[in-house]
């Protein structure tokens, strides 16, 4: 707590985060109405600028040049992509951005584990931190790889569903390997030595990345908007569980808002196609199978 805002009381940071959280809520609310949607986006952007700005100024940044460079590179790439994109290509770009968000959450949780082990040793990790990190890694890596595959399908690289033998059994198998890696991380059974690198976490990331690809590859291109909506909710949940790792309120609030609203939106989109989410995700052929969920709003 020795950044540029040194003289301010301790509670300033969480209070600014509270303001940001409120701006996200108001922005999200306005995003759901045609007339106020543009304003809502600006309000939510203000909340983001406030939260990021105060964080940069608040914490003692030991390597300001590195941080500045990273922010500049990211902002440059983001601006360039957003400005140069054709209107018709926007959905896949959203998919790519979404993947990056999930990937960032997974990296942050990993970096925090590595940092804590470096400072306190492996025994210094709390079960809350490792458990939340395992959840972040699983969701974040699935979001990263799944979103990139989904964006590729929307871009028309290979739109057809790709099927492989014993699909659902393989998915369940890979998921259980990932969950086992997470359990090793939390319980610290020495199946895999932790080391300074926190090896089980990166094993978890690798397996979860494979899972992300396996989940999205069998789904047809026409169903990708629903998949992107669901993965968007996932990236929010990944951010929220990163908040549990770092004990950060605004990460939890904003991430959970995105997670919950994204899940509802996914359901609405499925219902408007007259299909269930399970049918979209595991139904395979992309053919419309009538479900009874067609109640009117």
């Amino acid at each position, binding site marked *: 707590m020795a950044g540029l805002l040194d003289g301010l009381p301790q509670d300033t940071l969480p209070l600014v985060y509270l303001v940001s959280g409120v701006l996200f809520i108001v922005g*999200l*609310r306005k*995003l759901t*109405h*045609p007339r106020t*949607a*543009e304003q*809502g*986006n*600006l309000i*939510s*952007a203000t909340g*983001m600028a406030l939260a*990021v700005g105060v964080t940069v100024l608040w*914490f003692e940044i*030991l390597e300001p040049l590195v941080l500045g460079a*990273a922010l500049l*590179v*990211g902002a440059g*790439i*983001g601006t360039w992509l*957003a400005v140069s*994109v054709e209107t018709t290509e*926007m*959905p896949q*770009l*959203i998919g790519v*951005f*979404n993947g*990056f*968000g999930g990937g*960032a959450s997974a*990296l*942050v949780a990993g*970096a*925090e584990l*590595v*940092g804590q082990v470096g400072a306190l040793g492996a025994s210094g990790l709390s079960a809350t931190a490792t458990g939340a990190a395992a959840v972040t890694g699983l969701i974040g890596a699935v979001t990263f790889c799944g979103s990139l595959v989904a964006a590729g399908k929307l871009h028309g690289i290979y739109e057809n569903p790709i099927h492989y033998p014993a699909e659902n059994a393989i998915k369940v198998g890979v998921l259980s390997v990932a969950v086992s890696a997470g359990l090793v991380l939390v319980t610290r059974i020495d199946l895999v030595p932790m080391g300074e*690198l926190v090896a089980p976490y990166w094993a978890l990331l690798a397996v979860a990345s494979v899972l992300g690809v396996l989940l999205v590859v069998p789904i047809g291109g026409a169903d990708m*908007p629903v998949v992107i909506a669901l993965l*968007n909710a996932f*990236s*929010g949940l990944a951010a*929220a569980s990163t*908040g549990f*790792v*770092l004990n950060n*309120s605004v*990460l*939890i*609030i904003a*991430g*959970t808002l*995105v*997670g*919950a*609203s*994204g899940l509802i*939106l996914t359901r*609405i989109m499925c219902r408007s196609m007259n299909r269930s989410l399970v049918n979209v995700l595991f139904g395979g052929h992309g053919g419309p199978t009538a479900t009874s969920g067609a109640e009117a709003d």
Partner: protein
Amino acid sequence: MAFVENLTLFVLAGFLGYELITKIPATLHTPLISGTNAISGITLIGSVVVAGSGHSTLASVLGFFAVVLATVNVVGGYLVSHQMLRNFGRRRGE
């Protein structure tokens, strides 16, 4: 104790997010995904804290890449949403 407080925020924000999205016209589905996607870039804050903390070289390197990814998500996400919604407003105005 911190965990219980975090859990409280999580559960309440979950219900709130659920209630916020009630009636939404189909034309706003994609802009809403885009707008909430930009919000999920909030993980940038975590990246900034980890990248700047100087715990270890490896943590800083990972933090660097996390900041780049998250910043692309935030900046690109808000800009694309803005463009989309501007087009949307223009179409409505005609």
